[in-house]
């Protein structure tokens, strides 16, 4: 579903951060990328979504849409979303003056249009939203509030999961969605991810800690250090990192 080959990238006009990442994610799989701060994990997540602050300097990324491989890097951010990519932001953005429901209806209908499905009207969409919000324990009053404005850290992350649940992407990229969450929020967020997960979908989790992996079990764990994937393994690797830290990998890298 996702093929990343020798991807190199940098912050615009800045030094190179990713020095050649190669990773394949197949439908139905859950991958976790772990690594110390500053290793380039979030850069990778943002580049997959088309963040304008970054620039790809080498390699390529292909994404499978309805069985066809497409050049992901050639797509605009909104086209990537329509193709099925969803980035749960590490720091969800506040948007004053735009309500959650207005925002999500516009997104939902943009994606429905791209999938050639009928658009939802505001009334039926609200019903859907209220239902999805209940699943992640988000009070319906949050639907009419400005996007993420004055939301707590945990509420923002849950709002990301709400968006994911509504937009039903085929590839969910979670950028440190677990950071800053209390135990209850962590469980709710993880349940949201598990609910979405299906044979035709894949999840790429960027995480700093192993604790998220107590709730979501990845088949593959990759360790990123200094812009490179230095080791890949199964869920056991995450436990090892939890016990031993990252330094031992530095020597083997």
């Amino acid at each position: 579903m996702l093929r990343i080959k020798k991807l190199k990238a940098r912050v615009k006009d800045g030094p190179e951060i990713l020095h050649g990442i190669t990773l394949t994610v197949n439908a139905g799989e859950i991958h976790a990328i772990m690594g110390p701060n500053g290793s380039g994990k979030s850069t990778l997540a943002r580049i997959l979504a088309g963040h304008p602050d970054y620039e790809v300097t080498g390699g390529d990324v292909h994404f499978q849409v309805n069985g066809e491989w497409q050049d992901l890097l050639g797509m605009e951010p909104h086209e990537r979303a329509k193709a099925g990519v969803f980035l749960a932001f590490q720091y969800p953005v506040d948007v004053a003056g735009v309500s959650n429901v207005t925002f999500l209806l516009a997104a939902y209908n943009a994606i429905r249009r791209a999938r050639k499905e009928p658009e939802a009207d505001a009334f039926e969409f609200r019903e859907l939203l209220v239902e999805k919000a209940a699943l992640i324990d988000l009070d319906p009053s949050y639907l009419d509030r400005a996007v993420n404005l004055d939301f707590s850290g945990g509420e923002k992350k849950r709002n990301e999961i709400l968006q994911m649940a509504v937009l039903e992407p085929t590839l969910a990229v979670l950028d440190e969605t677990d950071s800053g969450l209390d135990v209850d929020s962590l469980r709710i967020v993880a349940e949201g991810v598990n609910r979405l997960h299906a044979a035709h979908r894949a999840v790429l989790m960027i995480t700093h800690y192993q604790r998220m992996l107590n709730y979501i079990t990845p088949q593959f764990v990759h360790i990123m250090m200094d812009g490179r994937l230095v080791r890949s393994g199964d869920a056991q690797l995450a436990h090892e990192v939890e016990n031993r830290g990252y330094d031992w990998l530095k020597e083997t890298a």
Partner: protein
Amino acid sequence: MKTRFVGLGEGYAALFNAQRGGVLDPPWLAGRRDDAFARLQQSGLPTRHVEEWKYTDISFLAGQTPAAPVGDAVAVDPARLPMWHEDDLNIVLVDGRLQQELSPALESGLLEWARLGDLGKNPETTPVAAHPAALLHAAFVHDGVLVRIPANAQLARRVHILLLHASLTPHALLAPWVAIFAGANSQARVVITAYSLSDAACLHLPRVMVSADSESNLAISQAQLLNTQSWQLATSRVELQRDAHVAHLEAGLGAALARHDLTAVLLESGARVELNGLYALDGKRHADFHTLIEHRQPNCSSRQVYKGILAGKAAGVFNGAVRVFPGASGTDGYQLNKALLMSREAQMFSKPELLIDNDDVKCSHGATIGQINPQELFYLQSRGIPEAQARHMLARGFVEDIMFQQGDDRLRADLDGALDRYFAAHE
């Protein structure tokens, strides 16, 4: 030597003379009109070398040939207007003239009203200001309506005064006059909409006078939805008596050039006024908002927030003056002006003026000029929303709080419709 004023072209004298001695001309009005025109001929129209007109050039109007709105006009069917609501108290003026048959509110018994020409004396107590827009209006006013909200009345229905531009005559000069007198302890919601049915350019010179008697509570909204060929020079004056409250909102969404001089006078203690504005400009359009709030007595408050969206090569001007008189202790004044520039060539000129003659006051002002936040834009795009739509949602969000100021869902929906048309023109 810089030219500070240019003389009015002969077209103005020709039109003035042709309109003299009309049927709606009581002596006070004729005298006021002659006086205003004489002053106007003496002063001419300002160029940008006059400080008050530094950012807005109206001198080109002096060379035009204004016309009476006679001859062909678009047929007016109010029920088909986008902002028409059958159960409002509707009053319609077409090309500056009151249309009684289109104004069921006048027969409702809920309002007292008078046609300007039927009044025995001038409803305004202040003389015509030495201001080109005020003088032009006074010299060319044809007709108008005075609405009186009886003391203690609580009007459940909105009063909607429509100033329609229907004339197909190019450069038609329209000078409607609207006076609203709210009796003591009354409560009402009044919307004044200037709207073009015609595609021809007109020179629109409306004057709005609002008098809020003690303890009255008014929501006054002025929506300017003229076609984008037209020019508007508007003057408004709002006077508040003891403990009166006026929430004023203006929306400038039309016209090629629009200038509004809005003065609010807090005449007695305890009066509160809010002036809120939103505007959206594109192309080479220009809008200039000049507000003046006079705090004359103690313990009055004023709050003004203006927000504009500027695209293309458009230019916006906000000049907000707050004047605190020597006796006006306990004054609370707040002013904020924000502009969102949607293009590199759009411009905003912002000038706050605090003139304070009292030590015991709380006055603050702020101004920001910004652009669409790229992080917000990316966030919306990353959810599947195309860039143009995302930019429009963010720009709409920028004025969201102003849209809610009047607590008037109907007005908000109508303004949203106008904003949608504005954004649609950029896709």
